[in-house]
């Protein structure tokens, strides 16, 4: 039975970008407002889940050729590297650094190494959620 779900697929194509940019906003706003790596990762995973529901698993695999196990590994390495970087410069484990920089487009911004740790959390959450959903989802 071939069903014609053109409205769902067209809506999913547009809403995917809205959800993804909202996830990026949540991720970067996590230092001063509610949000952070965990919620951002879950929202990103839900955007990919929307694509998987609207299309099928092979199409999304062709669209985003990502092995999510590697995403988990990269996230863990990033978090561990950020946490253990301070040991190599004579500070205790998990010491974070921040400073103010003058970037060409953003002006005066404060860059903090906790954002890199949060990026690791983000990648781990996206990878774990997508691995679970893809593993359960494929039925044959």
């Amino acid at each position, binding site marked *: 039975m071939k069903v014609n779900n053109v409205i769902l697929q067209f809506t999913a194509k547009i809403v995917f970008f809205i959800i993804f940019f*909202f996830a990026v906003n949540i991720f970067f706003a996590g230092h001063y407002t509610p*949000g952070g790596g965990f919620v951002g990762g879950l929202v990103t995973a839900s955007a990919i889940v929307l694509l998987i*529901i609207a299309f099928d698993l092979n199409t999304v695999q062709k669209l985003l050729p990502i092995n999510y196990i590697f995403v988990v590994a990269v996230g863990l390495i990033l978090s561990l590297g950020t946490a253990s970087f301070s040991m190599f410069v004579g500070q205790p484990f998990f010491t974070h650094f921040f400073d103010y920089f003058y970037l060409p487009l953003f002006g005066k911004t404060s860059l903090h190494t906790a954002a890199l740790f949060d990026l690791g959390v983000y990648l781990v959450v996206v990878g774990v959620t997508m691995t679970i959903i893809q593993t359960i*989802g494929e039925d044959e």
Partner: protein
Amino acid sequence: MTYFIWTAIVIIALSMIALLFRVVKGPTPSDRVIALDALGIALICLVGLFSILVDTSFFLEIILLLAILSFIGTIAFSKFIEKGDIITRDDSR
């Protein structure tokens, strides 16, 4: 102003009770899915009104988050009702 917001909260709570009746009583699964979707929208309205009431803007992300989750949940349920499974390996068969 506070009386106005509390009146709106009570009205939305009553409509949520009516929607909950439809969730419990609904004869078909489609009725329950529609009622759950409308419950999500009513919950969004409640979060907005309470964020006015406690005078904070930290809840506004929860509103968008609830809208996204309600949308994806409703689509997943409707695909389950339509096709029998939510995630398919190959759509062309």
